[in-house]
């Protein structure tokens, strides 16, 4: 009793002395006004690099014009985003609208942190491409709206390829390999920059092989990495990785492969179209040398399998501004701005009718042929835990590249992989 009182006094004293230190940045209240949405501010989290400044400005203007409310974009880094998002969704003032990776969406849908967007789907989503909308649906309900999608292409340095005497871009995997070999022999450039843990490309290769990363064992999901098809995909990866001097235990972001490519001494790398921007920022002179082509598959008629990365937009269930958030989605996903995003970033829009915006965009034209055969990681809530660092698939890749057989490596990571898939939700 006495102790309680004592500590209470202590706290009061502390608070008083802290008042002098100041710096409390309390959020202004966001009570819905009677006169529409005027005076309110909607917070929107978008990932670094996902939407150009121009697009944000245009959407901001349209939004303010229609609702009289303001919108604040906050740029987020992919690194550690799940932890940040989980805690944010539990708070009083979560971001009202946020971008969420398609493979992470089911897990968050299951947590109850995402608002049900059924009415939005009826209103504006009638012709969303079904394959792109798949990740937004959990348990029959619409928990997010498909925003944009993209897949990897080969970015190459035309000058290096010309130096090596190569005239045409390759159409098959073997031609691709032969070309890279030729670059290695005839120039002093690194033929391809392929770090050991570009795991999205690896997932693409497994999709190309028709393999699944997980399988069902009773009512549980377990690792399927010991599938010979996965091993085949990994062998392909290893063959190409052997041509690169890139570290075997790093992914494509450390260092940013675009920056390495930007130095001009690399023949090619496998990445997203926008990574060209990173290269150009590092070395503006490289801009005119960059070319793109579809990742060649085993045969000329079918491009390589690709991971169809993408993002959805979701509304926080805890947001106080549900209606305003939906207004925002209606604008951001409207044909005008969805089309603008596709045009500016060369990404695949959520409706087939908007794909005309991609005409003349070299990246999109290289990406499009593979998109049809693209796929994702398993769209199950259990999957999100797998992607947390240290990602067992990355571990698997490094193990194989460092000399283990695919079967041994699969065995090595199996326990960790299964443990994550079995994590209590």
């Amino acid at each position, binding site marked *: 009793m006495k102790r309680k009182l004592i500590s209470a006094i202590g706290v009061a004293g*502390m608070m008083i002395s*802290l008042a002098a230190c100041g710096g409390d*940045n309390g959020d202004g209240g966001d009570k819905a006004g009677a006169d529409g949405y005027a005076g309110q501010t909607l917070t929107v989290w978008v990932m670094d690099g996902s939407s150009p400044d121009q697009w944000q400005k245009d959407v901001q203007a349209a939004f303010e014009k229609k609702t009289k409310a303001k919108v604040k974009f906050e740029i987020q880094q992919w690194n550690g985003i799940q932890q940040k998002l989980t805690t944010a969704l539990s708070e009083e003032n979560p971001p009202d609208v946020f971008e969420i990776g398609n493979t992470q969406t089911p897990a968050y849908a299951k947590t109850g942190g995402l608002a049900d967007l059924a009415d939005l789907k009826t209103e504006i989503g009638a012709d969303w491409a079904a394959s792109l909308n798949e990740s937004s649906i959990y348990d029959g309900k619409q928990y997010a709206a498909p925003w944009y999608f993209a897949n990897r292409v080969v970015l190459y340095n035309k000058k290096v390829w010309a130096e090596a005497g190569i005239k045409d871009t390759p159409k098959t995997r073997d031609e691709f390999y032969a070309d890279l070999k030729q670059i290695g022999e005839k120039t002093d450039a690194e033929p391809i920059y392929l770090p050991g843990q570009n795991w999205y490309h690896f997932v693409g290769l497994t999709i190309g092989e028709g393999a699944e990363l997980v399988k069902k064992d009773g009512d549980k999901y377990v690792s399927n990495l010991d599938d010979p098809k996965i091993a085949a995909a990994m062998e392909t990866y290893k063959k190409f990785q052997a041509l690169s001097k890139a570290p075997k235990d790093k992914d494509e972001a450390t260092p940013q492969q675009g920056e390495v490519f930007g130095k001009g001494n690399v023949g090619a790398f496998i990445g997203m179209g926008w990574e060209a921007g990173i290269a150009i920022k590092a070395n503006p002179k490289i801009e005119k040398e960059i070319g793109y082509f579809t990742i060649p598959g085993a045969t000329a008629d079918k491009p390589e399998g690709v991971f169809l990365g993408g993002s959805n937009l979701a509304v926080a269930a805890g947001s106080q501004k549900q209606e305003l958030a939906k207004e925002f989605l209606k604008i951001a996903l409207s044909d005008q701005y969805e089309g603008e995003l596709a045009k500016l970033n060369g990404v695949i829009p959520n409706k087939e009718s908007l794909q005309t915006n991609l005409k003349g965009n070299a990246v999109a034209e290289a990406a499009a042929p593979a998109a049809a055969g693209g796929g994702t990681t398993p769209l199950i809530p259990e999957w999100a835990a797998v992607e947390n660092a240290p990602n067992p698939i990355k571990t698997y890749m490094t193990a194989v590249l460092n000399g283990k057989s695919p079967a041994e490596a699969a065995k090595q990571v199996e326990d960790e992989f299964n443990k994550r898939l079995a994590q209590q939700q």
Partner: protein
Amino acid sequence: MKRSLFGRLWPNVTAVVLFIGFVFPVYWMFSTAFKPTGDIISEDPVWFPTDITFEHFKRATGVDHFWTYVSNSLIVTLCAVGLALLVALAGSFALARMRFKGRRGFVIGFMLAQMAPWEVMIIAMYMIVRDASMLNSLVPLTVFYMMMILPFTILTLRGFVAAVPRELEEAAMVDGCSRAQAFRKVILPLLAPGLMSTSLFGFITAWNEFPLVLVLNKEAEAQTLPLWLSSFQTAFGNDWGATMAASSLFAIPILILFVFLQRRAVSGLTAGAVKG
């Protein structure tokens, strides 16, 4: 006693080698920060920067909210250290100079508190602060940082208080000072070096902390410099120039404070001990 040439030489040679070993990482940080990118990413290291550039510093400080981070860091650190010194001074005086029941318990209690692994309790702290609606504020940060450095501060100050000769205090009291006056006029001035060196530790701890601020404060307006520094590698890829410039800027206040205070702190300790 005559020592051989070798006997005279080896301590000095060892000292030089050690000096290089200890200074080199610090030197390399500063020199990289001033080198043009071409000299940083070169097959053979450029040991001494010849053409100096401020480019990297411009990039490092050009980040949005940079000055907010600086002022937040200063506010939080100074307030935490100031509070901790105040609270600790009272406690350490009692522990060093007074006899009372449970004194041993208090000492052990603070030693245990000093061992608290804060990094592993982050989620518990996060939930407390969240449920108190105090996220994105500097207040919880300040009080938690204060707590992180409080046990060490108390225990260290206790040693300093104990080292002040009791006779001085008694003499003052014989001269008619009250105990409080004796404390203020006699002990406090003698404690100054102790206070400084203790505050140094607190300053470093609070200045460096980032796991807690990372989860508590998501808004840039309430973030601190360690987050800025640790976000650099993601934001700038392998731009070592800018990263080293940021590290340099981050380290400079501590380096200055340290060089300034360390001599007084050590000499204070020795002087106090010798006199005692």
